[in-house]
């Protein structure tokens, strides 16, 4: 078993309910995940698979229409869902921090970089402005921003995209959190800048013993950065386990199809294996397995009942009738690529 979990989600669900309660979007459904200190977990899924809602659920930053009908979120042994708003405010930004996708939208254009990097330090640690700014300067240095002292009094618009994203990273680590959640942190960055940023995150993680949750649609980032992987489809985690195990022998047909559909540099002009159809509407999910309509291995049972999550090889877990015991067709468990 892996070391004691830093964060453990147990059967967590998040639904969005329309004003009249007639439409329910099951954005996250029955998700169980764990991440240990210092570990990197990649959560992969397409848009609408619930991965960003999952991140917002962990931080309890959901919009008013959201409900959490079931589940527990144990962080350092305490259930985040049972905490009062005041307690939660002391966790957010201090123990668990988040980096959002778009650095232009997550920085306030009206405040200097110094004010924004220093803000969490002042709020959570009650530091004076002067000492918070000194810390902010050190943080900018830590994220490799040249001439940090001068940058402190500048505004976000005076910086490039890569620099802004590093500032958001500096804010994220400002109070030395135990867990950092990064939601598509590099999608707006150029390739060489992305490589710089990912290496920086890895160094920060090693230096501070951070646990990292990477939310992304990019399997390349997972291959480069993560130890553990959870694949989401239509609100559910369909497969989870060690990254190497899943890349070597994906057990769920969706994971397998996803890995096959990505062009590789070494393949030349070979035809890609596309996944037909498109992700389902989360407010009108098909009965049974949500992937069944697009799945090449689907059989009758897949369209009738939802597959349970069962343990696979090497601590992996899979939600598929093909691998479920006693399902009649349990032969595709370790289908190689």
């Amino acid at each position, binding site marked *: 078993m892996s070391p004691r979990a830093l964060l453990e989600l147990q059967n967590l669900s998040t639904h969005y309910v329309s004003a009249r309660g007639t439409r329910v979007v099951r954005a996250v459904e029955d998700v169980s995940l764990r991440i240990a200190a210092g570990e990197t977990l990649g959560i992969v899924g397409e848009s609408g698979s619930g991965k960003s809602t999952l991140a917002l659920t962990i931080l309890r930053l959901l919009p008013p229409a959201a409900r959490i009908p079931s589940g527990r979120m144990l962080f350092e042994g305490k259930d985040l869902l049972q905490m009062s708003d005041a307690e939660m405010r002391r966790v957010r930004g201090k123990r668990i921090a988040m980096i959002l996708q778009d650095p232009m939208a997550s920085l306030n254009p009206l405040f200097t970089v110094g004010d924004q990097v220093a803000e969490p330090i002042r709020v959570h640690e009650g530091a004076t402005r002067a000492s918070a700014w000194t810390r902010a300067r050190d943080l900018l240095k830590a994220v490799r921003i040249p001439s940090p002292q001068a940058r402190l009094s500048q505004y976000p618009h005076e910086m490039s995209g890569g620099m802004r994203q590093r500032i958001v990273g500096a804010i994220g680590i400002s109070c030395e959190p135990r867990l950092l959640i990064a939601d598509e942190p590099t999608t707006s960055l150029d*390739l060489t800048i992305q490589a710089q940023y990912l290496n920086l995150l890895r160094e920060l993680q090693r230096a501070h013993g951070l646990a990292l949750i990477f939310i992304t649609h990019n399997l390349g980032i997972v*291959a480069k950065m993560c130890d553990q992987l959870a694949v989401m489809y239509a609100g559910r985690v369909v497969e989870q386990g060690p990254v190497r195990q899943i890349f070597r022998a994906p057990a769920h047909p969706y994971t397998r*199809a996803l890995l096959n559909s990505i062009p*590789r540099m070494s393949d030349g002009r070979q035809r890609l294996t596309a*996944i037909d159809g498109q992700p389902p509407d989360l407010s009108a999910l098909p009965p049974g397995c949500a992937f069944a309509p697009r799945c090449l291995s689907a059989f009758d049972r897949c369209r009738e009942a939802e597959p349970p999550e069962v343990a696979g090889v090497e601590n992996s877990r899979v939600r598929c009738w093909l691998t479920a015991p006693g399902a009649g067709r349990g032969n595709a468990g370790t289908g190689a690529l």
Partner: protein
Amino acid sequence: MAMLEAAALSKHFRARRGLFGGSGLVRAVDGVSFAIEGGQTLGVVGESGCGKTTTAKLVLGLEEPTEGAIRFEGCDLNALDAAGRRNYRKSVQAVFQDPYASLNPRMRVGAIIAEPLVTNEALTAKETRRAVLRLLDLVALPARSADLFPHEFSGGQRQRIAIARALALSPKLVVLDEPVSALDVSIRAQILNLLRDLQGELGLSYLFIAHDLAAVAHMSHTIAVMYLGKIVESGQAEALIRAPKHPYTQALFSAALPSSPEERREEIVLAGEVPSPLRPPSGCRFHPRCSSVMERCKGKAPVLEKVEGHLVACHLYNSAEP
């Protein structure tokens, strides 16, 4: 003879610095030459600000080149009369990145696809309808799509609509500017396969612009790598991917994400960022970030020269010269 040829193409923009500042010159595209063969794909890669989109606009005739020429089937575009230009515009079509922005939300899909036909060809309503249905079939959308609006479609389907519109006038060249980067991962392969099938079926040429190197490698016959308005390396796709020569190409390809956790590559991490195109570095524009920089690189800009079958603009490879 290449179908489309760009010779020393440049596009400079005037930029004003601040409210009272003087004006600067942005050399967005600076002396770029390339050729696209019939039925083949030229992939252009590079980071933001390298001039790849401006190059696309020049090819589409949406920008006038400051210097240089584009020759289409041997004819210089500058020498064409109005009818010739009209014919060129019909032969070169585009598919853009964001199918949520490139389709008019108030028009039905049938009207969107028919618009180029209505503007350019004198067809009867019946003929137009028939053409629209044929185009929808070509991109594997059901015929009833013609009567629906864009919002009723997913991203991948919208991109199919944009492709159908681009094909309405039976073009010879289609400019694909990041055609899959706005789409979901599981949908990208569908669209890339469709584009490849259409190329085979209709003998189309593509100018494929993307920042996803693997997608470019997958689609292209030849690849050109751009940095700050110049082509630093170009050549046959497989050779270029197997053995990139220019230090920038090497760094760019090494920054591409691995396709599996087992894949371990030597990673060349570039220091710093792309400099402002308003003040490009002297000599070789890449020299401030280059790990193999020499004295010569700071003073003199290298020109493209043949190195092992492809073209490279780097002083490392023309050591014979003083």
